[in-house]
């Protein structure tokens, strides 16, 4: 498979000898216009890789923060076509920052796998994380995605034991996303020492970069988690910042975009200062 923006970004991070910051926000949260402005501001604020959530009505692996974020976006009229449109618009001014679409299988399946992959490539998407398509179903979506040049990023978890890890890694590309806890997004903070050991275990089994996520909320946590890893993912904290910035009617305020970007700036600074 040819080199992707994700591959190039991790090479750059390695050259700079620092761990990258992967940021997650839901596409269309809290509304399409505000979401576009957040997306456009993320690279300058210090996001090295952008995970853009494809909102789903039933986000079974997500905690309350991302559930609420997903529902806000859907309520504001977000659809798959609009999510892909956001990426295309972002690409007009940024051809470097990788974008990974993250979400659940059903909206992709209903859009049509082949059509989705073609439109994602056309829009400038670099990779996919689809929470509920395990390696056992690789021929459905993972292999077709690789065939059109998209990275398919797999989650490895504390329950992915030595026996299973090779299966999870087999068709993974771009990077491996290590889920630091058994749980949902935004839950309790991970045990840092344990995570370091787990990341070591995964790195011993692959040459791919490893990003660590789930439960990372502060710059301090990000900094300590980052040791030994190639990137840290922050999501729930960012969408919670969106939620807190909203007016009484649930609409975006002047605070919304800066609230997210300032948090990203703080996280990025922490990761660059080690």
């Amino acid at each position: 498979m040819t080199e992707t923006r994700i591959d190039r970004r991790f090479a750059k991070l390695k050259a700079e000898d620092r761990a990258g910051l992967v940021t997650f926000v839901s596409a269309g949260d809290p509304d399409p216009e505000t979401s576009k402005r957040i997306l456009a501001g993320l690279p300058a604020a210090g996001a090295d890789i952008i995970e853009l959530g494809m909102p789903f009505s039933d986000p079974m692996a997500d905690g309350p923060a991302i559930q609420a974020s997903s529902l806000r976006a859907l309520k504001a009229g977000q659809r798959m076509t609009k999510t892909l449109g956001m990426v295309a618009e972002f690409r007009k001014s940024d051809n470097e920052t990788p974008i990974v679409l993250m979400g659940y299988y059903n909206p992709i399946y209903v859009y049509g796998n082949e059509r989705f992959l073609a439109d994602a490539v056309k829009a400038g998407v670099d990779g996919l994380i689809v929470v509920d398509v395990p390696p056992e179903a690789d021929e459905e979506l993972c292999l077709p995605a690789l065939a059109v040049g998209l990275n398919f990023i797999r989650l490895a978890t504390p329950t992915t034991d030595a026996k299973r890890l090779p299966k999870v890694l087999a068709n993974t590309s771009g990077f491996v996303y290590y889920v630091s806890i058994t749980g949902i997004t935004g839950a309790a903070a991970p045990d840092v020492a344990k995570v370091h050991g787990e990341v070591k275990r995964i790195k011993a089994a692959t040459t791919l970069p490893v990003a660590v996520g789930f439960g990372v909320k502060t710059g301090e946590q990000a900094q300590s988690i980052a040791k030994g890893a190639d990137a840290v993912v922050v999501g729930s904290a960012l969408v919670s910042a969106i939620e807190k910035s909203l007016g009484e009617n649930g609409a975006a305020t002047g605070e919304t975009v800066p609230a997210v970007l300032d948090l990203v700036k703080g996280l990025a600074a922490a990761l660059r200062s080690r």
Partner: protein
Amino acid sequence: MTTTSTADAKLNSYRSGPDERGHFGLFGGRFVAETLMPLILDLEQAYKDAKADPAFHAELEYLNTFYAGRPSPLYFAERLTEHFRAESKTGGGAKVYFKRDELNHTGSHKINNCLGQILLARRMGKTRIIAETGAGQHGVAVATVCARFGLPCEIYMGATDVKRQSPNVARMYMLGAKVNPVTSGAGTLKDAMNEALRDWVTNVENTYYIIGTAAGPHPYPELVRDFQSIIGKEVREQMMAAEGRLPDTLVACIGGGSNAIGLFHPFLDDEKVKIFGVEAGGHGLEVPNGHAASMNGGSPGVLHGNRTYLLQDDDGQILEGHSISAGLDYPGVGPEHSWLKDTGRVKYVSVTDKEALEAFQLCARQEGIIPALEPAHALAHVMKLAPTLPQNDILVMNMCGRGDKDVFAVAGYLGIAI
């Protein structure tokens, strides 16, 4: 797409599914987060081992007989049969039997599955049980087996359902279960299932999830079906004893479809047996988002671990659906039913809330049996079907639950002051 629909393949048997990866043709599979995958694979192995272990079957049979009260009677509904014959415009009127699974301990067919799964949980060394429930029948059955085996138990139930099925909520508490009302979404069964999955992914090490219907990731649809198939197996024997032959027609209600697959599965290869599954038509199939008929009014998609027919919009967002019956108010259906629909082996129809309420009252008055609102849906279709069938047609309807839990809600709908 991985598999072509077996709808166009020549089948030797309708009873051989699922394949080793949990597929019933296009449907089924294992669409879960990685955290759960190792456990799902463990469960599959544990179930294989249990199936091959005579001690497992012996213990289950013992519990079915002495704890659940099986076999449940096959009852000739004589007055309803007379009623349908009087109604028939063609001089017909099928002979109607009820499979009385409402007489089981806990009041529904749900105990069949819970006894099987609690034994599996014990074999796997799990120390904590969780479950989702809609009408509360499954929740009560889970709370019951957890009390019986001394395991702590948490039940997720939509906040809307907690209100409309309060007698069952009280029963769960009395049995020592913790009931967690779920407020996300519309607060019904789908949301309860999401929340149960979130609990499971968090407590995967020690927790066993007793799924209540023949849906979810493989091997749940298979094992729930197997545990519920005792219904159809008993009907075969009981009907041979009563009539000396197999029935001509089977009818059962479909939410997730566990009682229906339990009745249908042992008869799938008896091609002369006509089989009807009855979905919840709510306000009517023509009312957008006003029904819970995922096969008659939905399209294939992936939710809660399996590919199946779903109520959803054209962006793949799941709809809430609506039914008067909390047990049928689910936007999906077990994958085997989706496959049986596409192969044409089972005919899936729907009845409205109003028709189900009429059947509920007819059954109470004619037979002295207050049905749950779920089998009242099945009976509403029997009311349409039986008068059109000849008198020598033998029809079996699964009376899968009793209506005690529904009396307050139905009294409200009928304007009866209590």
